[in-house]
């Protein structure tokens, strides 16, 4: 149905001796909303910069419509970018920012890459005006064209950045954490807005974020990355329901991850108890990682449960309670709408479709235990993540 537009073949990127991208293989279809998701330093921004042409991979090929574009500079690619913190031109007003790309004379379209000798075409002023106004309407900024960039709010600057990129009618729009600087409410609104714009324009969006909720809400395809490698590619539902390894399971949503043994097809053992599950194709008695999503667990009276545990902490989250339950020293997170006070002993029941089995990986044992659960930790993590990212970026640029 949809045809392939961009393909990365065995792409690697190293700065000095540090491998930032490790043999990435990826294809992106026309009109797709694809998200590169991962923690800071996972190589997602580098991947985006390779597609945008700001960085050349140290190994591998970048194909656009089947043509190798490794050495095509950014200004000759049919790709436009919305940058982190927007990168609007402060000395120009909204109109001139959006018109910027249109005012650069371009080699006639249809010309091949070596169109240097070709006559450069200037777009007539009337057409520029039409296209800019049309685009400002798409991003709901009509009437703002004479405003100065510094007079706009974060959300409005964001819209200008999108209009400035889209007005050039690119085949692909790259977005580098575009909503990172906005507050929560605005971010939700812009998510819907971006999805609407993508569908309206019918072009490919490649979106970089470390926010899993954003990725799940907007994408057709999610590429989960960590340590320069692709961990999993798939539709949001697949990534959430069938994570490939402990990293993906932990990064996308919350997960309890346990050591288990696969006895035979559809039978897994953990906590010295056999459970029915829906997974098959593992070697007999193979050690595996078992993922149980906190919202899938049913709490029942102690006597009826397959497993028994004691509640050690309860946090109210609005819709549900985050309840931490101690099962023989291993703490699980259970999300439930019923309140169970600290100290209560409860039973749980796991249905076969609540259990997801993964092969052991380098990430086994690193995630999925809520023994040290604390909300403050989560928040602190977010803050340090953002800071590190800035430094990483700065360094990366210098290495180039």
């Amino acid at each position, binding site marked *: 149905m949809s045809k392939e537009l961009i393909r990365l073949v065995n792409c690697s990127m190293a700065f000095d001796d540090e491998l930032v991208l490790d043999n990435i293989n990826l294809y992106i279809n026309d009109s797709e909303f694809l998200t590169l998701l991962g923690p800071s330093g996972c190589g997602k921004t580098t991947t985006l910069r390779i597609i*945008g042409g*700001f960085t050349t991979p140290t190994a591998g090929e970048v194909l656009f419509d089947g043509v190798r574009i490794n050495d095509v*500079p*950014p*200004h000759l690619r049919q*790709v*436009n*970018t919305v*940058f*982190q*913190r927007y*990168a*609007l*031109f*402060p*000395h120009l007003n909204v109109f001139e920012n959006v018109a*910027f*790309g249109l005012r*650069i004379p*371009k080699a006639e379209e249809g010309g091949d890459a070596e169109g240097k000798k070709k006559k450069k075409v200037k777009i007539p002023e009337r057409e520029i005006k039409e296209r800019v106004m049309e685009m400002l309407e798409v991003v709901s900024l009509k009437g703002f064209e004479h405003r100065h960039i*510094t*007079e706009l709010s974060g959300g409005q600057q964001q819209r200008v950045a999108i209009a*400035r*990129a889209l007005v*050039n009618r690119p085949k692909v729009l790259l977005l580098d954490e575009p909503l990172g600087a906005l507050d929560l409410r605005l971010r939700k609104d812009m998510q819907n807005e971006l999805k609407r714009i993508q569908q309206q324009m019918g072009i490919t969006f490649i979106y970089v974020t470390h926010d899993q909720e954003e990725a799940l809400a907007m994408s057709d395809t999610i590429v989960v990355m960590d340590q320069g490698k692709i961990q999993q590619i798939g539709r949001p539902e697949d990534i959430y329901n069938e994570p490939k390894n402990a990293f993906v399971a932990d990064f996308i949503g919350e997960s309890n991850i346990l050591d288990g043994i696969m006895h035979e097809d559809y039978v897994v053992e953990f906590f010295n108890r056999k459970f029915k599950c829906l997974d098959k194709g593992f070697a007999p008695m193979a050690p595996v990682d078992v993922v149980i999503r906190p919202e899938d667990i049913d709490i029942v009276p102690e006597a009826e449960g397959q497993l028994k545990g004691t509640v050690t902490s309860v946090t109210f989250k609005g819709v549900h309670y985050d309840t931490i339950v101690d099962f023989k020293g291993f703490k699980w997170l259970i999300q439930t709408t019923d309140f169970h006070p600290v100290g209560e002993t409860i039973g749980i029941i796991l249905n076969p479709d609540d259990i997801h089995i993964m092969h052991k990986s380098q990430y086994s044992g690193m995630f999925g235990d809520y023994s040290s659960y604390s909300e403050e930790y989560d928040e602190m993590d977010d803050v340090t993540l953002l800071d590190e990212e800035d430094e990483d970026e*700065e360094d990366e*640029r*210098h*290495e180039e």
Partner: protein
Amino acid sequence: MKRVSNRIFMGLVFLFLYAPIIILIIFSFNAGNSNTIWKGFSLQWYRELFNSRIIMNSVYTTLLVSLLSTVISTIAGTFAAVGFYNLRRRVREPLMTVSNIPMMNADIVTAVSLCLLFVAFFNGWESFANWFNEVQTVFYLTPKIYLGFGTLLIAHTTFNIPHVILSVMPKLRQMDRNLVDAAQDLGCTWFQAFIKVVVPEIKPGIVSGALIAFTMSVDDFVISYFTAGTTSSTLAMTIYSMTKKRVTPSINAVSTLLFVTVLVLLVTINIREERHARAQERRLNA
């Protein structure tokens, strides 16, 4: 009580600082021939100034060398700053320090070393030209070249460049690194991006750099004295040579003009910087 004594102290400090210049300015308008006795207001010394061929020549030399060296050093310094900016931090920091040293260095040392360099080059050139003229007869190279306007211009450009770099660099650092990428993304080549986006962003730094360079050039005596040779003379050099004969009030008049020029430039630079600092603040608060 304390405030009164503070004010008196302040007044004394300023008196000591500015008394010589004030006296110089007052006596440049003196009708008489004296630097000590006031004989009424007159513009005769200024008139004499504008009629003096030597002084007008040196004014011309000063303006020409200042303007040319300002233009050259502003362009060179801006590109140098962009180069530094794109270097890794580990390389950039030591290079910046090296580039700043000439500003702190004693003028006389810079002057003598430039002079020695030029003379050494002239000697080398003489041998080369003699050899060249011997082996062929089509072209004739002058073996003898001397210190003059050319060396003066080179010297001024040399000491101006660090000032431009120092004033452009902070503006580059304030700039969002993604701006150049964004411009290239929208279809600019690197050079187009530089002209259309980087230059407007760092323009305040470039203009201040140029103003500082011009001020330093107009103001300079020591380095000019050692590199101008005998054929050209800047205003500062002319004033110096005039004092060797007899101190006439026309020296006061020239000095007053020089003082006013530099003062106007400095005030302009300060006002510009103040205004940009305030604009920056407003931008941050918005």
